[in-house]
């Protein structure tokens, strides 16, 4: 999912950098600084997840976990994912620093989107919680594939062909991430509900 250095045009890289700066600024303003440990844990999970691989044809895909990060952090997913991507680039040579902005948009924007789409379902019932988690994991990768296809499309590649290739390569990851996110959210709701944003807010209201 990490676009390599030297693949994208200057304009695409610039647009990616601007969106990332805006997203990270908003994310840093919205983040609850009393819960920074949650942000760090989820950023660490994202940082390490990229080391798990599935080889499909000539392409090697890896776990991303942007769904669980986005679902639990919302807008704070932007700074969390950006930090993890910088470290992946420095420590593992993934992607590269010039493509950082675009790679952050590809992975963080869908994460924020699934937060607003599926978080309202979490906690309604155990079944709905798992479904919400599954959909968040599944669609965060799906949306990331579409954004990746769009970035490559603006760099002279056939949009439909590229999107089909990316989505096809990532279907197993979409399913795996859906299952992982579903189990993660269901488990966390049982053992550590404070990590879920709604529970955090209702807890604060009760205290207030």
């Amino acid at each position, binding site marked *: 999912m990490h676009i390599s250095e030297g693949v994208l045009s200057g304009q695409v890289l610039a647009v990616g950098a601007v969106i990332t700066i805006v997203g990270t600024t908003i994310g840093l303003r919205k983040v609850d600084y009393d819960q920074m440990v949650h942000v760090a844990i989820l950023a660490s*999970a994202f940082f*390490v997840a990229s*080391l798990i691989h599935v080889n499909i044809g*000539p392409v090697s895909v*890896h776990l991303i976990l942007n769904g669980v990060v986005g679902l639990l952090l919302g807008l704070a997913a932007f700074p969390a994912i950006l*930090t993890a991507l910088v*470290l992946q680039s420095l420590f593992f040579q993934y992607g590269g620093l010039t493509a950082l902005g675009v790679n952050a948009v590809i992975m963080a924007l869908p994460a924020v989107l699934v937060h607003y789409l599926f978080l309202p379902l979490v906690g309604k019932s155990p079944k709905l919680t798992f479904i919400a988690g599954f959909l968040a994991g599944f669609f965060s990768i799906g949306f990331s594939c579409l954004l990746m296809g769009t970035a490559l499309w603006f760099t002279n590649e056939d949009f439909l062909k590229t999107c089909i290739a990316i989505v096809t390569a990532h279907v197993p990851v979409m399913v795996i991430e859906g299952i992982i996110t579903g189990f993660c959210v269901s488990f966390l709701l049982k053992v550590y509900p404070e990590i879920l944003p709604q529970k955090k807010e209702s807890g604060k209201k009760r205290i207030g």
Partner: protein
Amino acid sequence: MKKILILIALILGISSTSALAHKVIVFAWVELGQIHVEGSFGSDRPAKNCVIKVTDSNKNLVHQGVTDAQGQYFFALPDTRDSDLLVELNAGTGHSGHWTLTKDELGVAPTPKSLGEKMAQKQDLEKNPSLVRILSGIMVIFGLAFAATWIKKRKKDKPNA
């Protein structure tokens, strides 16, 4: 605290089942009058059927080919060797890597010692990230999180001081 430890174990436990690297690695060297190119996504994961493009320093196409099932490709040394060669491997969907062969390498026949050094360099590139690197990355993330919290708290406390 116990709950936070469970959370760390749960999320990082998911991620620790298999530690493999993901990056496009291209390596090229001269041996027996041929340029050998090898592409991979790390140890034991060859970049199969990927397009190889070789260009000189003026971006003129010198050679083009496709890697085999082992991620390898060989071709004869070009007649003119007055420029460095850039070997690019395109694995599709935004994944690519490159390697530069200097004109000095192209002009001199490799010795067993220099070949051994090249192979050691290749193995070093293909190595999976070490546990130290992974743990260092996690420590940096937690360090930044605590630094951000500390700065925010200091800002909050200042008006009251």
